[in-house]
């Protein structure tokens, strides 16, 4: 190769480098699961039958969520709670399924001293249980009381394909990230559909064509304690 040829080829390589880097970054972003977008949930309370706990049970079974039969130790990733408008003590209560809101600005992740709780690129707030030191700051920080602590060892292990958590770590709903990464639906959504209600819809909030985006656009949705500025991503219809 003569000098001229060498310089020409080298120049081409140099010019192409930024594009190659862009390609690399783009492929990594899309490789981080179906979470290229931003996962969110809609719960249509009009379709959520009173007394049904299909989602709660399915979640427990799928994620090996501990149930010791004692409210002090029980862990809930999704549970039925009675809520009323903020500051109105006399207002009638309403039962709604409550779970981790996967906030845009998650207080639990902000306070975690070891960064065990973090937000994935697709917006799911998740705990790295290997790193959790059990300080329980996140339990205090979460305005939704969606975080729970494993005060005891959980012996039940219904789903062997998914790990349980040991005594001494905090946990909450992770929107079935392990299932979403495989292109499957979260257990609660699947159970809700199987029960014939179809009240829970999980999908990509960034995609205007997705079912969840259309539901949000077509209905009046509310999020719990929006005033706190955490940017919750669980939307309720009919609240």
């Amino acid at each position, binding site marked *: 190769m003569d000098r001229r040829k060498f310089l020409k080829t080298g120049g081409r390589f140099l010019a192409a480098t930024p594009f190659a880097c862009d390609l690399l970054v783009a492929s990594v972003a899309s490789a*981080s*699961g179906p*979470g290229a977008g931003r996962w969110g949930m809609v719960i249509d309370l009009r379709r959520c039958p009173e007394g049904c706990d299909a989602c709660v049970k399915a979640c427990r079974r799928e994620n090996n969520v501990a149930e010791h039969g004692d409210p002090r130790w029980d862990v809930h990733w999704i549970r039925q709670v009675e809520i009323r408008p903020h500051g109105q003590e006399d207002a009638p209560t309403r039962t709604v399924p409550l779970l981790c809101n996967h906030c845009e600005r998650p207080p639990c992740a902000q306070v975690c001293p070891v960064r065990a709780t*973090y937000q*994935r690129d697709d917006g799911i707030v998740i705990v*790295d*249980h*290997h790193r959790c030191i059990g300080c329980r700051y996140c339990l205090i920080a979460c305005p939704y009381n969606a975080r729970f602590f494993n005060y005891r*060892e959980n012996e039940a*292990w219904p789903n*062997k*394909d998914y*790990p*349980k*958590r*040991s005594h001494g770590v905090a946990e909450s709903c992770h929107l079935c*990230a*392990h299932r979403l*990464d*495989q292109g499957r639906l979260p257990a609660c959504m699947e159970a809700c559909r199987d029960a014939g209600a179809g009240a829970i819809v999980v999908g990509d909030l960034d995609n205007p064509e997705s079912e969840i985006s259309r539901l949000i656009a077509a209905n009046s949705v509310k999020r719990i304690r929006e005033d706190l500025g955490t940017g919750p991503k669980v939307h309720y219809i009919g609240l």
Partner: protein
Amino acid sequence: MSGDRKSPLDGNLVKVVFPLLVILAPLGLSVIGAVSAGDPGAEEPFLELPPEPNEGCVRDAEFMRFHHWELLREVRDQVVRGGGRHEISLDRCRSCHPSRERFCSRCHEAVSLQPDCFGCHYYPADPAAAVDHARAGR
């Protein structure tokens, strides 16, 4: 004046050297004993290996023997923080080494290690259960 001064060891001979000897003597004796008797050391744990080497091995045996925990730790962080849990799983280990008790635990027990992986990750001690699980899951 200088003639009166004792050598630093004189008064301390009984106080320091003798107890030191008493303390160190068993150690020295055991080393001498071990060397002279040709002590083979602790017995090497017997691992039950698959009948034939599988092509699906993650790395060769030599690497795994000395670095499997580093590999597991690295892969763990990669999978937990980066996603793709379903692509990498202990199932791959279990398919050839079905019994944790006869494989992992033999060495861990021999060197008195208690890794807490299996409190949360399924890897049964009983191979029959593992095979059933692998069949049901796949």
